């Protein structure tokens, strides 16, 4: 078992054992990041593999100013953004809007005002799978903005630059994403309550 300094040293000289150690140490956290950005499991896998290959090629550029994990997360997020930018040519935001409308018609959205009950947004109320299920209901452009802003702490200016959109677009996507998520989470909470009542 290597410590972090040895792993870094080994990875810089392209040592296969050190590379595998780094992979084993961070794969589960990086996968958690990838599944939030990807459309499905397969895309998450592709992002994860591409991200790790970038990490191993660019590890020489890592200066120990911040944490290694922070640097790895940055690379993974950038890889996910590259995937999104590559695929968005085939994916129009107007389609996103259509999808939201369609989902509303299908009855997945709750009609009426959204609950502001803090219990509804308690971490203990949902499992990771449920949170991810709600996140995956969002259109791709909305999901990526929500992730970048709320989980990775990017600013709207940074998001706009990375996704090649305007800042106001980023803000409006975040607003819609949050609104839609609140509604989806309420559906999930109601479903869970019904099941536990049975």
């Amino acid at each position, binding site marked *: 078992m290597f410590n972090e300094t040895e792993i870094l040293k080994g990875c810089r000289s392209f040592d296969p054992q050190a590379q595998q150690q780094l992979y084993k140490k961070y*794969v*589960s956290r990086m996968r958690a990041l990838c599944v*939030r950005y990807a459309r499905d499991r397969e895309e998450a*896998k592709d992002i994860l*593999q591409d991200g790790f*290959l970038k990490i191993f090629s660019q590890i020489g550029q890592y200066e120990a100013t911040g944490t290694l994990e922070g640097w790895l997360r940055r690379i993974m997020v950038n890889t996910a953004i590259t995937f999104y930018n590559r695929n968005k040519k085939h994916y129009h935001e107007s389609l996103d809007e259509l999808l939201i409308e369609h989902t509303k018609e299908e009855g997945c959205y709750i009609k009426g005002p959204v609950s502001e009950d803090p219990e509804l947004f308690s971490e203990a109320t949902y499992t*990771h799978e449920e949170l991810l299920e709600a996140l995956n209901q969002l259109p791709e452009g909305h999901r990526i903005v929500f992730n970048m802003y709320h*989980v990775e702490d990017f*600013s*709207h200016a940074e998001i706009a630059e990375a996704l090649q959109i305007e800042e106001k677009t980023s803000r409006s996507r975040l607003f819609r994403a949050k609104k839609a998520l609140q509604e989806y989470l309420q559906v999930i909470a109601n479903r869970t309550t019904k099941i536990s009542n049975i």
Partner: protein
Amino acid sequence: MENDKNHIGDLYQKAFSDAGWDDPEDEQDWNAIAFELDKKRFYRFSWTRFNVYYCGFIILLVLLMVFLLARYLMLEENTFKKNNPTHPDSGNVSLIERTEG
């Protein structure tokens, strides 16, 4: 940084900022990455590992040896012809002379 974070943002940040996600296919995924890394390693210069530069050097050595061997054989043949001008293999005796005897 804009200050419009709310419950839902906190919920996701708490749940996912430090979360892990295990997958039984980790080993398979590593194999795919290791295969790509092996390819990259092959094109990377190193004194201690076999790589494209060693491979090129070996091919160059083989070609050089083939060239030197061919040149040596040609020189041998020329020397033989020079030293034995009447020998049938020297090329100085015609076919008629050789058959006549």
